[in-house]
Each structure stands twice: as C-alpha cells, then as structure tokens.
C-alpha cells in the first residue's frame, strides 16, 4: 500500500467503514466531524495517531476514526494512554471520555494524568448524564435535576471538570459547545498543538436523556448573553451588544454594565491564559449561569515540561552516569564468585 503523504490527508482518510451508532441528532456527531477535520491539518502521519477511550456513548468514537485505537474499560483510558505515550513518545495520543467515565469511575486516572502532565489530548464529552445506561445522574448533573436515579432531583453537588483540572495544575484547559463548530475546531487545533495534557471539555447535548441542559449557551438567540468568549490579552466583555463585562471586586468577580458609563473596558479583567498562577482560570471555571456568563475558549495554556520528557531526561541522567547497561555485568552482580 502506498504511504499517504501527510499533506494530502483529508477528513475522508480518518473515516471508517463502521456505521456510526449514536442516536440521530446526538452532539457526538459534531465532535467526530471536527476531530476528523482537524487531524489532517496537524502535519502528523496518519499512522501515528492513537485514540483511546473508556466506556460510554462518547467512548465509541475511536471505532469511527481510521487511526490506531482502543475502546477500553470504564474510566481507564488515561492510564492506558499514559503507558502508550511513555513507551511510544512519537505517537499523537488522544483520549475520548465522558463525564461519568472521566469524573466518576475514572476520576483517579483523570487527575493523575494532569498532575504528571503526560502529553496527550483529553476530549471530555460532558452531557451531564449517563446516556448509555439510559439516564442516571452523573458527577456533572446539576443540583435538583430529575434523572432516573434522582427522581426528586439530584442532591449530589456537581463537579466542575475544569476546576478539578486546574487544581491538578493542568497545563491546557479549554471548553467549547458541540455545535459551535468554528470555536470547537479552533480549540481542538490548539489542544493538539499543546505539549502536555490538554483537556477540552465539550458541552454535548444528550437530547434523549438530558435535552436542553446547555440551551442557554448553545442556542444562538440566547448564547451571547449567557457565555463569554475567552481571548488571551483581551478584557472580559460579553453580551449580544458587547455591553457587559467581568471585573474583580475584592476577591470576587462581578458582572458590570458597560452601558451606563460607570465602567469602561479599562476596569475589566484581562484574560491571561499564560500566567503560571491558576487563580484567575479557577474563578473563571466557577462562573455559571444565571449569575455569570459561562466562559468558553482557553482557560489556561502554559508551557511546562511534560512527563515523558522528564522520564527521558531522568533515564538520560542514569545512562550518562553509567553508560548503556551491560547485561553480563548486571546479571553477574556486584559480589559474585567463581567456582572452578
């Protein structure tokens, strides 16, 4: 078979013959399409992509990608991907997961991957519900939400994935909405370019079990007043008429109007995704409707050594000191003796 030139790759090269088996209208279709559009643009040979997933609707995605892939077990994709990346640093490793997979059963691997800053891209499809098991509450289900396992409304306080990631020192964290194609694609491109763990949280509508949970930020008529697009170095302005902003009042952010003349853009917070301090990104991650607009875009993007580099430099230090290992000397041991 002729090796496909990197520059000739198209979306078609990443499609498989498998029938895509998500519910018609599912937000996952949109994510799949954007991923397939982004990969050919990255300058990476097709055979060097590997997609690892766990269990859940989102985790079926690798079956629809014509790359190397493994649909693994519930919650464990980051651990499998870590072993793959550490042993094969030249591969571009992607994890596809969901809110239950990453934050409930797989919470431990999720946090430790980011703590170590293993070079991989984690796509977290957050629909705030268990879809494949038909509608139980998930770790991101909102308080009071009725589900099959919370008939009087959820009493579990939800986890905020980006806050959790920031507390682990994640070096790249971003959020997008499934159907906001342009924004999603830009973010996936940036995540792919980032060295270290990139977390992309995608608000994904499950229209069967949790329809409309992201309506305020996905509906074109509503979204401009309910979301804020993060841009590095730009003041935090939002609203259909770009007449509102976020300023810091003491230690707390607050929404202010730019229309009544009391505040100008100069009073607003300026987004800095590159600061080594995670505090600003953290309070952005705590902003939710209806009190605040929900931030979309890149919360944090900092350059730090990734785990694989650290492992290899530690290995190089040992090898530098001792030279390549000599099997005979090692097996013989330091205090062997000879019998004649």
């Amino acid at each position: 078979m002729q090796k496909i030139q990197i520059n000739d790759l198209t979306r078609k090269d990443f499609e498989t013959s498998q029938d895509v088996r998500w519910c018609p209208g599912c937000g996952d279709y949109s994510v799949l399409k954007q991923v397939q559009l982004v990969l050919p643009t990255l300058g990476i040979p097709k055979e060097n992509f590997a997609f690892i997933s766990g269990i859940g609707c989102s985790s079926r995605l690798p079956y629809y990608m014509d790359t190397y892939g493994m649909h693994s077990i519930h919650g464990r994709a980051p651990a499998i991907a870590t072993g793959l990346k550490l042993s094969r640093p030249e591969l571009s490793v992607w994890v596809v997961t969901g809110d239950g997979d990453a934050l409930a059963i797989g919470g431990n691997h999720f946090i430790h991957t980011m703590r170590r800053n293993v070079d991989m891209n984690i796509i977290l499809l957050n629909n705030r519900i268990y879809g494949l098991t038909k509608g139980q509450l998930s770790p991101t289900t909102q308080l009071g939400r009725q589900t099959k396992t919370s008939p009087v409304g959820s009493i579990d306080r939800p986890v905020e994935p980006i806050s959790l990631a920031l507390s682990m020192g994640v070096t790249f964290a971003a959020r997008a909405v499934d159907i906001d194609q342009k924004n999603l694609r830009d973010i996936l491109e940036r995540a792919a370019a980032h060295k270290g763990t990139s977390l992309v949280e995608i608000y994904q509508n499950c229209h069967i079990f949790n329809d409309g949970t992201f309506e305020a930020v996905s509906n074109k008529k509503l979204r401009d007043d309910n979301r804020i697009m993060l841009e590095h170095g730009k003041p935090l302005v939002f609203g259909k008429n770009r007449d509102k902003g976020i300023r810091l009042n003491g230690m707390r952010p607050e929404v202010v109007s730019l229309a009544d003349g009391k505040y100008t853009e100069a009073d607003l917070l300026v987004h800095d995704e590159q600061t080594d301090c995670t505090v600003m990104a953290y309070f952005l991650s705590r902003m939710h409707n209806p009190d605040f607009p929900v931030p979309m875009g890149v919360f944090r993007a900092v350059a730090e050594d990734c785990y694989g580099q650290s492992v290899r430099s530690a290995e190089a230090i040992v090898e530098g000191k001792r030279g390549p290992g000599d099997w005979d000397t090692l097996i013989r041991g330091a205090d062997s003796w000879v019998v004649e």
Partner: protein
Amino acid sequence: MVEKNKPAERGDTSSPAGSLLERPHRVESLESVVIRFAGDSGDGIQLTGTEFSKSIATGGYEIVTHPDYPAEIRAPLGTLYGVSAYQVKYSNNPVFTSGEALDVLVVMNPAALKMNIDDLKHGGTLVANTATFTPANLEKAGYESNPLKDGSLAIYRLIPIDISGLNATALKDSGLSRKDIGRCKNYFALGFVLYLHNRSLNQEIEKVRTRFAGKPEIAEANVTALLSGYAYGEVCEVFDTRYTVSDEVNLTPGTYNSITGNRAVAMALVTAAKQTGLKVFLGSYPITPATDILHNVVKLPNFNITAFQAEDEIAGVCSALGAAFGGSLAATTTSGPGMALKTEAIGLAAMTELPLVVIDVQRGGPSTGLPTKTEQSDLLQAVYGRNGECPVAVVAARSPIDCFHTTLEAFRIATKYMTPVIVLTDGGIANATEVGRIPRLDDLPPFEVKFRTDPNGYRIYERNENLARAWVRPGTPGLEHRIGGLEKDALSGDVSVDGANHDKMVRTRAAKIDGISKDFAPLVIEGSEEAKLLVVGWGGTYGSIAEAVRQSIADGHAVAHVHLRHLNPLPNDLGEIMERYETILVPEINLGQLSVLLRNKYLREISGFNRVEGKPLRVSELRNTIEGLA
C-alpha cells in the same frame, strides 16, 4: 570477572586482624546448619541475616533463606508482634528449604526469644543479648522471671552476651553519638556469628567499607563492631564449639551469586529486553511483598526498561496494557489485593489479545490478610477470576532463581500466543535467597518477537497456527485498526453481537490457551521409580516437598514427586503420569486449589496436605503424611 572468596578458603580460621588470641576450639562438623536471627524490627535483623547469608554463600555453599518480618515498619520496641527474623540454612549438599529445627538462634531481646525458642533444637546454641533482658522488656514479652537466669533454658547451649554493652565499650572512642553506637550492635552480633561459623571476616570488612563509603566514621565504627564481635567469640571462655560444614565441592564450575525471587523477576525483565531488543515497560503500584521488583527495575533505565509507578493498581496494569498496544514487552507486578483490582484489565488484555505479563507475588489473604507472610491462595483467582469465559496462561515459579526462568517463559508465551500470562510467585520465594550459577545469554531459550508490517489483506483476528493474531505496532502505515473490550467479528475485528460469532470467539480463545501446552517440556518425575504415591506440587512449595520426599526415600519409603510450573493450561503428560500412581498427594499453602483443578480435569481422587500458616510447609509434618500414604 571478580573472583573473591574461593571455596578453597572455606574453613579458614585465620583471625581477621592477625593479632587476636589463638586458642584451640572444638569444631563441630555438620551436614548442614540452620541459623535464625531474631530481634526488634528496628534492630537491623534483615541486614544481619542478609550479610551472614552472603558471607556463607560466597564460600560456595548452597543456601536457602527465609526472611520473616512484621507488617509494621517500626513496631513498638520489645513487643512480640514487632519481632523480625531471618533464617538461613546452608550445606554443601542441595538445600531445598530454609530448614526447621534450628541449630543456632540469635535473639536480640526477650520478645524474640519468646517467639522463636520453640524452634531451637535440644542442645542447640542460643545467643542472647543480655542487655535487653530488663524487667520492662521481660514483662512486654510475658516472662515472669528472666529465662536467662531461671534455668528454663537448660536444654540449650546458652551463650548470654551483653552485645549492647560490649559494642558500646568497643566504640566508646569512636566519637559517635550513643544512638549511632547502638546502631552498630548488629555488626557486633554478625562478627560473633561469623566467628561461630568459622568464616573469615576480610570480605565482610571490605563490604562494610563499600556500603558506608560516604560515611567513613560510621564505616570504621561498624568494622570495629564486627571485629569486636569476632574477637569476643575467640576469647569467650564460656564457649568452645564452632560450626563447620563439610567443604567437599559439588558445584558445577562457573560464576555464582545469590539472588532473591523478586530480584530474579527484575533480571528477567532486563533479559527480555536484551533478547528481543524491545523496550520493556513495567507499570506498577507499591504493594508488599512485590514492591522490591519495582525497586530493582527503577534503577535500570539504561537497560531499555521504563518503570512507571502508577496512581493505583488499576493504572499499573492499564499503563502496561497501553504499552503492550504500543509494541513494548509489558508487565505489571502486584500481590493478592492488587490482583483483585487488576481483574477487569486482564480481561481486556485477553479480549484484545495483547501480550501482558502479570506477576502476582502471593501473600496471605483474603483481603489485606497477612501482607508479609506467604501463601498459595491466588491460584484459582489467577485461573478463573475474571468475568466471562476468560482463560489466560498461568505459570508459577518454584524457587527464587526459578522466578527468573518462569518470568522469561511468561514473556515468550505472552508474545507467541498474544495473551496475558499470570506469573505466580509468593512472599516466601520472593524474599528468600538462592545461590546459583549465573547463566550466559546463549544458555537461555531463544526469544524473538515479530510485528506485522504488511498491510495487504490484514484482518485483526486472522490467526496463525498457534491461533494467535498478529501484533501490530501503532505507527505502521496502512495497518490502522481498533481493538477493544466489545466482542469482535472473528475475522475483521468489527464490533459484533452475533451469537454464533461470539460462541466461535469464546471457543477460539479457549483453544488458543489450551494449545500453549504443546510447547511444554516433558514433566520431570523425581524420586523412586517403584513408587505408588505421587506428590504433585506447584510453585514455591518445591523446596519443602523435595526435601520431604528426599528424607522419606532415605528412610526407605517409595515416593515420587512431580512439580508443576504450568497451571493453565496443565501439561499434556500430567494425566497419563497420574494414572501410573495409586495415590496422589497435593501439598499446598491453601485449602486445596490445585486439588480442585486436578480433580476437575482428571476425575481423580486427590489427597490434600494443606496448611495456611503464612509460612513454608513444614518438612517434618509433610514427611509424616507422605510416609502414611506411601
């Protein structure tokens, strides 16, 4: 090649410093000697025991050791449960176990005496550190009066020594703090015991200086303690017998060293990398008694090994599986509770048909059980403990050195048959030391791995003559494919829920594992040819069983012994061999797990010999059972 203490030097009684008093001593010659050191877990007992064993082993003797330490790192001083012990048996004949009845017992406090005295032979030598026999320590150990003085130890040859006091006196001019001086007392004890066993000190002195190279004042203090202990033995009035073991050389010429089972596993990982040229990846999480494997491997990144300490047991096995998908030789190491956690991922490895070696250093269970004690109770978990029809290969090591060969075979099976392989060792052989001739690379069975690179006609579950699918490294153009935990079409590897296809895949996976047995060498039957009793053992009980069988035969009984490395699949010739015997006895450190497998497969009546006491099977007890059946 470093040549140190040649066997010819055995029995060398020259005093290390040359200036020590020469006195005539009676030297008792024995076929073998069993000695145990016991004291508080902070007394350096394991170090003393290890150093003693090394010194003996370099003399060309065969040794087997048994370290026995509490689960607590530093249990409260002087308590019964804080007693740590280290036992070694040595001989110029084959040694199978660390021995039972002790010839020599060295106790550093009353608790150690209480816990160990029952194992000392009548007339055996008891060395006791008198300084610790204080009223408070005696009470902690449950003694109403001082056993060193009340005559209760009259049946032993008691050597009371104020080890702490003599050590402190010897080191009073060392300039060290009292605490540091106290720490040297285990070297005093070691010096004394080396004297007792007729060993020269030169090599040990050299080792102390190397070990404490960065702290010369500590090194010299320890050397002084060692020399003082040795000198005390020479001048000691109360004591006139030394031990020596016949020094007729039986060993095959070659380079020798001693090794623990855990280190042997680590050496197997290195060797697998060396033989195949592939990277070895070890994903692991600390757990007693398996952690030493990881300790050994992390020091060897210049041997093409990546060791990864994962966040939990599951991540340990999953990272290894990820590395296996990437084309590395992948392993994970654990013990019982960790095995339970890794179960689902081992199922995924069986389903995706990726090579993965899982090393289970068995310990007492269930649950947390007896973390520092040995047991063989994970056999059925290894063979059956997964959801679904999920056969995997299971092999078990019989001795510390056999951990090396068994682990290497596990890698060969895993890659040839594209399957997880579980290696069962146990806390006994993992920590015990065995002396053996060091293999050369050419001595080992060949080990080569091939990846598929040809994309033409590739189908994920197309199988070769061994029913194995091809191993494909990501990064190979044209062979992009997806695998996973869902059942797949028997050829294309597409997701399939078809019943007939599932039935076919279930049977194929089973047949693949069954087929591994065609590669096994014929079983070796040890013992009498005319025997009607066959003892079938597996794994780490080899030493106890072989010794019991040897003694029974020497006593005129006809008994044969076959010892299994392969537990799944079982060897093809086992059924036919068992048919030749009237009685089958299966000794195990569990309630009869191999018995279950053998009864099930061969429909044979099996007698069990089962003890679950956290220690190796007792030879004398097993021998009684054997002789009752033979």
